[in-house]
C-alpha cells in the first residue's frame, strides 16, 4: 500500500512539474499555434480528414512531449540512482511516463476535439471510437520514446538530434528544392509519415480501427518493455523483455503485411453492382441514383446539384450510371475499380472546387457515351466526335458560369482521350455556341454522335460548322493545354477507345 501511495503522489508531482516545465510552457503553446495555423479544413470535412489532421497533430504534440519528458527522464536515470529512494528507478520512470502520457493524452484529446468543433459542417463518415483511442495512443510515442532514449543513452543526444531535425528540414526545404537532397527530404518525410501512420488505410471501419488500435498498442508495449529491459544487473528480465519486444515487432510487421494484403485492393476486375440498391443506402434523385457511404448522405445533395445540368443535356434514352462512392478503407481509392454500371465518386468533395465536380461529371458522361470508366482505363479517341460531345456535356456542370471555365471543363475531359488540335478547336468553339443549338443536335443525333466511327466532321456538319481542321485555334490564354503538348500526353501505343 505504501509503495502505491508513494507512486500516486509522485505521479501527481511529476504531472505538476511537467506542466510548469519551461520547455512545456514555451514549446507547447508555440506548437499548438503552429498546428492551428497549418490546419487544413475542407469545406466538407470527413472523418478521414479528421484522422489525417490528428496524425499530423500527434507528430507535433508528441515531439514537444518528447522534449519535455527527456529532462525528468534523465533526472531519474542520471541523477537519482545513488540516493536509495523508496521507489525503484523503474517505478519512478513508470510514474513519470504515466504523468507524461496523461498530459499528452489530454492535450491530444483537446486538440483533436477542436477539429469537429470548428468544422463548418459535421465531418462526414462513420465515427469509430476505438480509432480515436488509437490516435491518443499514437501521441504516447513522444513521451515513451523520451523515456526509452533516456534510459538507453543516458544523454541528451536523442533530444538534440530530434531538435535538429526541424531546422534541418526547413533548411533543406529552402535550399534543396532542385537538388538530389530534395529527394532525400522527400524520403525522410515519407518515412516520418509511415512511422506515424504505417497502415495502408484509414481506421474508419470497425475492423480497420481495431487493427489500427492493435498496432498502436503493440508499439506502446514495445516502448514500455524497452524501458524495463534497460535495467542493469537483471539479465533474465532483460532477456525476457527484449524477447517480448522482438515478438511484438514480428506482430507489427505481420499486422502490416496482413493489412496490405487484405485492405489494399489487389484486384482490378470490377465487382457486380448489388441488386438491392435501397439496402445499400442508395437514393434516387431525378434520373440519377446515388449510393453514398454511411455517413456521407448529406453529400448526395452536392453531387446532385453538380450533375443536374449535365444530365439534363444527356438524352433520356442514353444510359446513366449509378453514382457509387469508393470504399473508404482504401487510401488510394483511384486505384479501386468501381462495380459495373457505376461512376465512382471519392471521399472528398468541395462544392467550390471545380475539379471535384469535373471528375464526377466526366465519369457520368464517359459512361453515357460508352467510353471506358473515366480515370481507370486510359485510351485514345483522337478525332472522335463522341469525346468532343462529352467535353461539351461536362462543360455544362453547375460550377462553370462563364465560357472560359466551361472550356477548362471541356479540356479536363478531353485530356484523358489524347486530344489533338482539331479536337481542342472544336471543343473550344462549342463552348462559345448557343447552348440550345448544340443541345438540340446532341438530342437528335445521339446514336450517331456516340458511335466510335463518328469523326469530328460528322459533328461539324450537323452543327453547320466548317471542317474541324479549318476551325480557328482556341484562345491559348484560356487553355490548360499548351499547343506544343498536342497530341496531349499519351504515346502512340495508347490503345484506341472501344
Amino acid at each position: 500500500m505504501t509503495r502505491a501511495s508513494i507512486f500516486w503522489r509522485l505521479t501527481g508531482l511529476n504531472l505538476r512539474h511537467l506542466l510548469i516545465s519551461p520547455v512545456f510552457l514555451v514549446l507547447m503553446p508555440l506548437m499548438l499555434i503552429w498546428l492551428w495555423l497549418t490546419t487544413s479544413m475542407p469545406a466538407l470535412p470527413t472523418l478521414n480528414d479528421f484522422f489525417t489532421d490528428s496524425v499530423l497533430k500527434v507528430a507535433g504534440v508528441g515531439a514537444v512531449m518528447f522534449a519535455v519528458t527527456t529532462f525528468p527522464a534523465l533526472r531519474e536515470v542520471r541523477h537519482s540512482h545513488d540516493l536509495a529512494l523508496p521507489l525503484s528507478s523503474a517505478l519512478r520512470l513508470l510514474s513519470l511516463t504515466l504523468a507524461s502520457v496523461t498530459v499528452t493524452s489530454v492535450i491530444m484529446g483537446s486538440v483533436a476535439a477542436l477539429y469537429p468543433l470548428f468544422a463548418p459542417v459535421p465531418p462526414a463518415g462513420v465515427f469509430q471510437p476505438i480509432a480515436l483511442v488509437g490516435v491518443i495512443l499514437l501521441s504516447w510515442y513522444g513521451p515513451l520514446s523520451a523515456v526509452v532514449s533516456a534510459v538507453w543513452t543516458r544523454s541528451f543526444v536523442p533530444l538534440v538530434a530530434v531538435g535538429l531535425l526541424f531546422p534541418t528540414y526547413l533548411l533543406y526545404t529552402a535550399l534543396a528544392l532542385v537538388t538530389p537532397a530534395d529527394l532525400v527530404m522527400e524520403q525522410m518525410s515519407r518515412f516520418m509519415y509511415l512511422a506515424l501512420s504505417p497502415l495502408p488505410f484509414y481506421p474508419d471501419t470497425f475492423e480497420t480501427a481495431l487493427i489500427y488500435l492493435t498496432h498502436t498498442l503493440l508499439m506502446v508495449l514495445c516502448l514500455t518493455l524497452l524501458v524495463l529491459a534497460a535495467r542493469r544487473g537483471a539479465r533474465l528480465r532483460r532477456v525476457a523483455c527484449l524477447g517480448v519486444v522482438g515478438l511484438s515487432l514480428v506482430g507489427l510487421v505481420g499486422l502490416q503485411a496482413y493489412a496490405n494484403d487484405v485492405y489494399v485492393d489487389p484486384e482490378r476486375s470490377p465487382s457486380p453492382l448489388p441488386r438491392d440498391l435501397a439496402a445499400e443506402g442508395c437514393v434516387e434523385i431525378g434520373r440519377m441514383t446515388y449510393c453514398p457511404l454511411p455517413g456521407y448522405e448529406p453529400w448526395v445533395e452536392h453531387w446532385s446539384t453538380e450533375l443536374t445540368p449535365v444530365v439534363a443535356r444527356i438524352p433520356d434514352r442514353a444510359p446513366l450510371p449509378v453514382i457509387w462512392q469508393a470504399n473508404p478503407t482504401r487510401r488510394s481509392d483511384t486505384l479501386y475499380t468501381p462495380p459495373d454500371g457505376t461512376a465512382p465518386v471519392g471521399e472528398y468533395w468541395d462544392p467550390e472546387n471545380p475539379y471535384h465536380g469535373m471528375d464526377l461529371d466526366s465519369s457520368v458522361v464517359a459512361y453515357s457515351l460508352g467510353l471506358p470508366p473515366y480515370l481507370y482505363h486510359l485510351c485514345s479517341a483522337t478525332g472522335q466526335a463522341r469525346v468532343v460531345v462529352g467535353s461539351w456535356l461536362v462543360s455544362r456542370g453547375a460550377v462553370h458560369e462563364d465560357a472560359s471555365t466551361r472550356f477548362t471543363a471541356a479540356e479536363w475531359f478531353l485530356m484523358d482521350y489524347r486530344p489533338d488540335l482539331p479536337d481542342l478547336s472544336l471543343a473550344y468553339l462549342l463552348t462559345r455556341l448557343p447552348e440550345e443549338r448544340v443541345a438540340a443536335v446532341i438530342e437528335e443525333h445521339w446514336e450517331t454522335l456516340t458511335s466510335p466511327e463518328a469523326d469530328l466532321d460528322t459533328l461539324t456538319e450537323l452543327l453547320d460548322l466548317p471542317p474541324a481542321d479549318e476551325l480557328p485555334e482556341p484562345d491559348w490564354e484560356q487553355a490548360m493545354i499548351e499547343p506544343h503538348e498536342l497530341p496531349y500526353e499519351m504515346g502512340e501505343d495508347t490503345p484506341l477507345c472501344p
Partner: protein
Amino acid sequence: MSGVEGASGVSARGLVRTYGTRRALDGIDLDLGPGVTGLLGRNGAGKTTLMRCLSTDLEISDGELRVLDRSPERSTERTEIRRNMGYLPQNPSFYPHFTAFGLLDYMAVLKDLGGRRERHEEVRRALRRVDLYDRRHSRIRRLSGGMRQRLGLATALLGDPRLLLLDEPTVGLDPEQRIRFRDLVSELAVRSTVVLSTHQIEDVAALCRRVVCLDGGRIIFDGSPGELVDRARGRVWEQDTRPEEGVTSWRLADGRHRVLLPVGAPAPEPAPPGRVAVEPSLEDAYLLLTGAVGGGR
C-alpha cells in the same frame, strides 16, 4: 506510519560484500542503536560500501542484515526502510535543474511525508535547519559546493528519520556550518541512530559516543572514542628532533615534532632531546590504529 517508526538501529552478522573476487566487506558484525557512531578508515577500507549496504542501495553478498528491524532483501520492507531512513551518499548527484525546494519536495513525496501542505511545511523546516531557506528557489546548479552539501543533508533530515547515514557530510562546509551541523546531528541522535562516515576526526571526537574503524573490509576497532584514545596513551610525545624512519611523526608549528610510537615498538633509547610525553588525541589514536605513516622518514 508503519511499525518502523519505533524501530531503531542496525544489526549485521557476518556481512560480506564482494566486487568480483575482491571482498570489500569481509564478515562485519555490528549492532547500532541510538546515538552517533563514527565510521573511520582509510580510503578503500570499506566505509562507503558498508554505508551503501546499510542504506540498502547495495545488496549484500553474504551474511545477515537488518535495518530498522526489517530485512532489506524483501522489497516491501526495503521500501519501509528507505522511507524511514535519511541517507546522504558521498558526492550525491542531484538533478541540477531542480530548485532547492523542488528537490526536497520530490524527496518528501518519495518518503510519503503526508499531503501537500504537510509536506511543504516539512520541506521548509528542513531548509531552515541547514540554513538554506533563503535559497529555496535557487536552482541546484547555481548553489556552491557547500550549499549543495547542506542541501544533501537536508534531504537526509526530511521526516526526522530513525536512521541517519551520513557519508562524508561535512566536506565543503565552513567552520560555522560544521558547528551547526554537529548541533543538528547531536539533537537527532537523542532518539535516532546516526552513522557518520568521515575522515574528519574532529567531527567524530565532537559527536560520537562510539567509533568503528575499518581496514581491509574488517572491523579493527569498535568502542568509545575514549577507549581508542586509551590505546594510544604513553605512545605519543613531542621532541625537538625528527625521529628515525618507520615512526609516524609530523612537524609542529613551533618547530618541534609530534611522534606516534607504533603498538609493540620499543621507545628509542636514549630519549631524544626535549622528549615530553603528551596526552594523545583521537586522531593520534586513529593513526596509530591504522598504522598510517605520516611525515617520518
